[in-house]
């Protein structure tokens, strides 16, 4: 089993690292598919943090929340991929900066 005292900060470091990478990816990348994967990365970083805290606090809540996030993420992927597919089908280039009709 994991050594509690030593692995705890490392696990949190990995989670925050994954989250930062995901956030930067969302902000920087232009391909919607990659942006999407980065969002998944952020979600899973949060999952890791949940599970870590749950384990160290001797509580099942963290895992329950992680499961919930997985479900929501699955639903979100369905919607998101459907949108991306539709945009692609309409013959437009897959570039988030081109999808800016919501400006004034």
């Amino acid at each position: 089993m994991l050594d509690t005292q030593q692995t705890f900060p490392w696990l949190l470091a990995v989670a925050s690292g994954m989250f930062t990478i995901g956030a930067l990816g969302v902000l920087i990348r232009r391909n919607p598919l990659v942006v999407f994967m980065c969002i998944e990365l952020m979600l899973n970083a949060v999952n890791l943090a949940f599970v870590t805290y749950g384990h160290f606090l001797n509580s099942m809540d963290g895992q329950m929340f992680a499961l919930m996030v997985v479900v929501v993420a699955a639903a979100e992927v369905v919607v998101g991929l459907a949108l991306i597919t539709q945009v692609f089908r309409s013959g437009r280039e897959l570039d988030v900066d081109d999808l800016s009709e919501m400006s004034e």
Partner: protein
Amino acid sequence: MSHALLAATAIPQNGMSTDKAKTLVILVLVLPLAGALLNAALGPRLGRRFVNYAGTLSILASLIVTLVVFFTILGADQSLRSTTVTLWTYIDLGPGNLNVDVSFTLDQLSAVMMLVITGVGFLIHVYSVGYMEHDATPHRFFSYMNLFIFSMLLLVLAANLLILIVGWAMVGLASYLLIGYYYERRSAVLAARKAFITQVIGDIAMVVAAFMLVLGLGAHSLSLPVIFATAHDGFAVNGAYVTAICMLLALGAFAKSAQFPLHTWLPDAMEGPTPVSALIHAATMVTAGVYLIARFHTLFDMSVLAQGMVACVGMGTALMAGVIALSQIDIKRVIAFSTMSQIGLMIFAVGIGAYSAGMFHFITHAFFKALLFLAAGNVIHALHDEQDVRLMGGVERFMTNTGRYFLVGSVALAGIIPFAGYYSKEDLLGFGAVYGPGAPALYIAGLVVNVLTGIYAFRLYFLVFHGEPQTARISDAKEARRVMLVPVALLALGSVVSGFLLQFPLPGIGKNVIGDWLNPVFAQYGGTVLAEPSTATVLLTQLIGLAASLLGVGLARQWFFFHSPDAEVVASRVPRFLTLLSLHRFYFDDIYDAVLVRPSLAAARGVRRVIEPRYIDGAVRGVGSALSELSVDFRTYQTGFIRDYAAIMTIGAVGFVAIMVLLVAR
């Protein structure tokens, strides 16, 4: 306090039991109201037959209940004839604060009013079935009419000033609705508006009077028995305070009863259907002012000044309206001005303290004036809405019965023995000869009114029914249907017998039925009932009054018998300024138009042209344009790039966490 008093006036035995009185009051009020609601809700669907029956039978039922009330009161002892019942508490602000009960009084005075309202009201409703047969919305008409009967009963039954004012305002509403019944006609809408606004002036005066009563008596109750019982302790006789209250009440009465200076709405109110003119603007509503002053006799007896003012205004209006009636050419307007004149006499009577004489004239007037209006309605109906008397003449040949009834009404109006008007008019003038401010100055004015009444009553009769037909159309006139003739005939019967049955004029001969009936009411709360003038005075005034009336009829016969519509021939025999005053209705409409209506309209137009666009619209538009200018700057943050939104979100989240951490760390 109020309950102790009510218990004192409530009837233990022999009189009406409280439960019975409650049942009767509820029935008499609810029946017409139910008629109004039924006609309004179901009338359009169930059709004309239903409306006719619902409209008239509800009033008939109310009349039957009224008769039960009347005979119960008649059967009770003299001292046990007044019953006040409280149905429920309307406003209760706790002890020491204002308390208002929904309470009603059944006594001799309210019984007389109820009999006239439901009795004459029922006949006019029956007549309306015939008169409105071609109308498109009879349910609307009967709904309004029933509502009026309900409101009027509420007014006369109220034992609480607040309830009285509610009824007072509601009859004004019914009057407004019915004057403007033909709402496609601009003149009708304007007339309805004029009547309503004028009457509201009176309503406001009454409300102020109610406030003054609460303040002055400190009784914290608007119950009429309480007000009357405490008035002598609360107010100094002839004091300024009680005089002010009486003046305000009188102003309310003047507005409702079309007396100077609030009289101009009544002639215009003839825009309504003729049954409305008969019911509201002749028989009942316009006499509410007379009732009000009679009901508040305790207060008016305490102020000589207010009484004198009321008497002078009444007689002045009677004179003025009599002069105006001489020159009017619209058949309904002649009768309207005659109504104004006759109500002036009633107001004069209650002003000098001859309350039962005023109420007596109210009763007989309700009969013969409703009769005149309905008979005139028959003529108008037969001539296809022709109202100009110059275009009539010789109508009697084609409408014999209507002509005969109209003659009965005219004789009663002119006051020729033995018709009803003679007894009531000479009765009140007999009092006027002895009592009142500067007696017998106003009595002499009353004699002039008698002459004028004779002239205008018979001028109208001769112009319409005698002489040669002025247009070909008249020979096509057909006698009215039975549903329109029978009510007129019954009213004619009342115009003949109601006078000598109710009061034989000579003391000692016959009985003063109306005086015996009503005077106990006016003797309540320490009131004084004027003593009958001496036999010699009565005889003399009766003869002089009759002579004056006959003189008027004779003049009318000489001038108008052979249908001489040539106004100049008549005008050449009277001073020119009188002719002008009469033709222009003493210029009151013009004065009010110039002083009140035009400046108001100009001010309104100014507000609309300047204040509204610049300030009101400006403020609204200013808010809008300020916001849209502000949005020009904020809009630039809406780039449409998802990355920008995400960046702002991230910065926000990081900033939030940072603040949290800093706060927790501290």
